[in-house]
């Protein structure tokens, strides 16, 4: 009998701990499938963050590190400098990790043009600690540390990491995608594949920002969460390519 579908071997059999409707599962799958399709098993090392995807080292079936909060790009820098260009190095980070405590590390990894890929999952909230305000939390969005909703006056406007990193001269490829529907999932996979290809070609720093739902901490059902993402997140965080040196 012909095999029509197989789970990618770049994911372990460990059951995901993610909440129903959370997009981490889809994003993990896309990353793993791309690694698999590019025959990178045995030639890739990943770095997990602190946050909801802290256990990513249990899910990606390759050599993995678990980094301190926000430090994944520095850890990845050390790995990449040690293993050289034949090994693909990626970080997988959330918005609390990358856009708050880890801003120095991500900015300087981009600034040095580190030949790494960062998968940046932005769900506009701290998930693991239970729904606190993130730098990416939208104006008016409620979180446990902004119970009446974020205001610009008190907390500033939500940070736009892709736009910001695209300004750094050594950034090579920066794209923002979403996995809210089939078409966007396909586009997200293409973007991830392109980033990995650029790294294997020895190009510079690549980051794919993936907008993601957090039904649990947004207090919405999975379906409502997708609607919220489409109606609120995508308008503020427009999808698209912010930097692609090859195309320039």
């Amino acid at each position, binding site marked *: 009998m012909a095999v029509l579908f197989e789970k990618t*071997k770049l994911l372990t059999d460990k059951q995901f701990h993610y909440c129903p409707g959370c997009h981490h599962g889809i994003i993990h799958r896309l990353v793993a499938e791309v690694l698999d399709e590019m025959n990178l*098993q*045995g*030639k*890739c*090392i990943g*770095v997990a963050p602190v946050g909801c995807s*802290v*256990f990513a*080292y249990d899910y990606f*079936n*390759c*050599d*993995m*590190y*678990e*980094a*301190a909060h926000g*430090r994944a790009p*520095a*850890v*990845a*820098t*050390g*790995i*990449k*400098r*040690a*293993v050289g260009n034949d*090994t693909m190095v990626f970080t997988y980070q959330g918005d609390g990790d990358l856009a708050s405590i880890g801003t*120095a*590390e991500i*900015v*300087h990894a981009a*600034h040095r043009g580190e030949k790494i890929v960062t998968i940046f999952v932005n769900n506009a909230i701290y998930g693991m600690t239970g729904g606190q305000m993130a730098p990416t939390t939208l104006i008016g969005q409620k979180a446990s540390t902004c119970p009446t909703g974020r205001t610009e006056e008190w907390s500033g406007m939500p940070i736009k990491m892709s736009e910001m990193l695209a300004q750094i001269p050594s950034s090579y490829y920066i794209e923002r995608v979403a996995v809210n529907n089939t078409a966007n999932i396909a586009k997200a996979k293409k973007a991830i594949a392109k980033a990995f290809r650029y790294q294997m070609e020895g190009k510079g720093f690549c980051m794919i920002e993936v907008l993601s739902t957090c039904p649990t901490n947004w207090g919405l059902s999975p379906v409502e969460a997708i609607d919220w993402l489409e109606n609120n997140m995508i308008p503020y965080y427009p999808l698209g390519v912010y930097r692609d040196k090859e195309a320039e």
Partner: protein
Amino acid sequence: MALTLMKGSEAIAEAAIRAGARFFFGYPITPQTEIPEYMAARMPEIGGCFLQAESEVAAINMVYGAAGTGARVVTSSSSPGVSLKQEGISYCAGAQVPCLIINVMRGGPGLGNIQASQGDYFQAVKGGGNGDYHLLTYAPASVQEAIDIMMFAFDKAEQYRIPVLFLADGIIAQMMEPVELPEMVDYKVDPEKKPWACTGWKAGDDPKKRGVINSIYIDTESLTVHNNELQACYKEVVENEQMWEEFNCEGAEYIITAFGTVARIAKSAITQLKEKGINVGLVRPITVWPFPYDAVKKVVDQPSVKAVLDVELNEGQMLQDVKLAVNGTKEVDFFGHCGSLMPSTDEIVNKILSMKEGK
């Protein structure tokens, strides 16, 4: 072998390279900037990697990344910078990543000053970062001793899978001494000896060899097992790795305890006191963790010993370990300065004289 006149920081850097270090990540800070500068020039000559990090926080995390692949990796900094590294050091300890950290101590707290100090003793041996961990911590008293220790420091780090800390004061790094440098070690990562290292695992390989460099153990049971493993390792280090020097201890009337450069000044004081007919000995811990409690106790327990004088370039930090070793059997006095004012030979002589006079 010929002696070369070398500045401490450069000699320490060259020794690290000769011991197999091929990766250096660091950030400039006085009084140790000569180490990254030396590495920046030297690493490319031998096919190694020098990278200036954006901060000490990033530097230690780069160490974590590179050392997790099995490479021999070193970073250096001075006190305020080492404080910034503490998070990463705790992660290296938790994830059992062998690596080498050099702290050229300067005055504190806070920005303090840029002169020599021994004010980071507590940070080095009593914690620093979070959690129950220790670093194998060497406190060299000369440039040559720093070189000699460096030549086996990576072996120890790898044997026990713990980070090794060089606790040097600013004097060791800044002074020039004639030294003998050993031959270059030909170090290559051996995946058999480092099955934990991330070297490119793939499906079909031994599942136990998938590299996971990690310090999180989310359930109480697995974290207990992990900590028990760490503690068993520390116990072995305590049993096997204590190093100290005894000088003029036999039949001594007083015993001085001191580490690093201060111990050398104490030796001069001991020579002067001998001329005055006062017999004083010195116990100098070379490893400050593990601290040589038994060695100190054995020397102090001699019937001839009346009292102990601990001398440090701080307000009395190792003093606590000396007191634990002496355990109340003899009086322990202290002499030291903070603010980086080095205790002089005369001050130590006078202190012993005043102790003798019962003042």
